[in-house]
């Protein structure tokens, strides 16, 4: 009996693509945040994990908010598992892994939409209002989901802080 894996190849490649670029983005922001080499490696790994989980959630037709929450909970929990190795930087490294999920582009779209509404020759006002509010709500809920997802494991475990 042979198993046809072809239908799984495209979704798997998509997850790998997102995980890879999530890792690269987390690593880049880690350098910006002055992470040391060891913390950078961890942040890169967490970035890959976070984006892989979020992508799997989105592929399973979850909302962006739900997928981001699941990814943040998983990343925060994973960081806590390794907290003895990560030390005082545990929470910061987990956060860096989740930075690629911050919906900055949606925030920009929302504000640009609101800017467009104030122009003297605004067209398609109703659609613009709808899209802007939708983008803004996605920002608020997704940011909330990431923050809550990272905070909940920490509040449950309460590791040594210093």
């Amino acid at each position, binding site marked *: 009996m042979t198993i046809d894996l072809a239908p799984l190849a495209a979704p798997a490649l998509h997850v790998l*693509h*997102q995980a890879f*670029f*999530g890792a*690269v*983005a*987390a*690593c*880049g*922001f*880690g*350098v*910006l*945040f*002055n*992470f*040391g080499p060891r*913390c950078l490696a961890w942040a890169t790994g967490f970035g890959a994990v976070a*984006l892989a989980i979020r992508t799997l959630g989105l592929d399973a037709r979850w909302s962006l908010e739900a997928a981001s929450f699941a990814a943040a909970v998983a990343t925060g929990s994973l960081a806590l598992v390794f907290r003895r190795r990560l*030390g*005082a*930087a545990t929470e*910061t490294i987990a*956060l*860096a892994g*989740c*930075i*690629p999920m*911050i919906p*900055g*582009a949606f*925030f*920009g*779209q929302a*504000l*640009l939409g609101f*800017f467009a509404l104030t122009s003297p020759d605004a067209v398609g006002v109703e659609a613009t209002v709808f899209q802007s509010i939708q983008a803004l709500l996605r920002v608020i809920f997704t*940011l*909330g989901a*990431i*923050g*809550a997802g*990272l*905070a909940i494991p920490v*509040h449950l475990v309460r590791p040594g*802080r*210093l």
Partner: protein
Amino acid sequence: MREGEDDPVITRHRDLEKIANAALRAGRVAMESGANVRAVHDVCAAVARGLGAEDVGLRSGYASLSITVSAGENTITRMSSVGRLGVNQRLDTEVRRLAGRVGGGGFVPASVHGEIDRLLRETPRHPSWLVAVATGTACAAFGRLLGIDWAAFLPVLVAGALGQELRHRLLSAGVNVFVVVGIIAFVAATLGGIGARTVGSSTVAMAMMASILLLVPGVPATNAQTDIMDGFPTVGSARAVWVIMVMVFASAGIWLALALMGVTL
């Protein structure tokens, strides 16, 4: 001998003042390095108790820290201003480690100041060119997550890197942070847009958006939420307002760039 120099209450107050100042300085460095309020309070309290304070009370504002330290019947309150809040993970971690060591005893206020001076002097920082390249790469990776095509990858990387280097120089020159955000958003988006268009990208608008993602204040945004959850709504709200202001200036910058390029999202 000056008046009051042999008064035990005054002498004890002077000791407490040294303890308070050392604790505030450690907390200030942690806060300026991106720590959330709970962590800052942990640092201050550990230093103050390790130096001999019996009771410690703390209050945080967005740009200030206050501490009340007590020993016996003596109590003093001191306040310190806090500078621009950034993110410096290595310095943050080192200050927390120092606070843990001071909390274990064996330090005096002067040695804490000496250790903080050493950390400020010796904690390594990545060279600015590396930060610029890494930030540009992060923007390009972010762009791929958002759906830019491969043709736009390099232009976004270059625009993000140049934007980061310009941000570094403007902030070092003391330019207002929000003005810097507006300038960087305009410059990086314009460079990203011109580059993407030149190489024939079909995702020019998204490339312009990706080029300014270095400005997205991810750490302050999550710190705002963490602070509110931890019971510090004042600082959390202030951070949230700061985040909104940054995004408003970033949007104004990219809006100008889009208008200049004749691109719509």
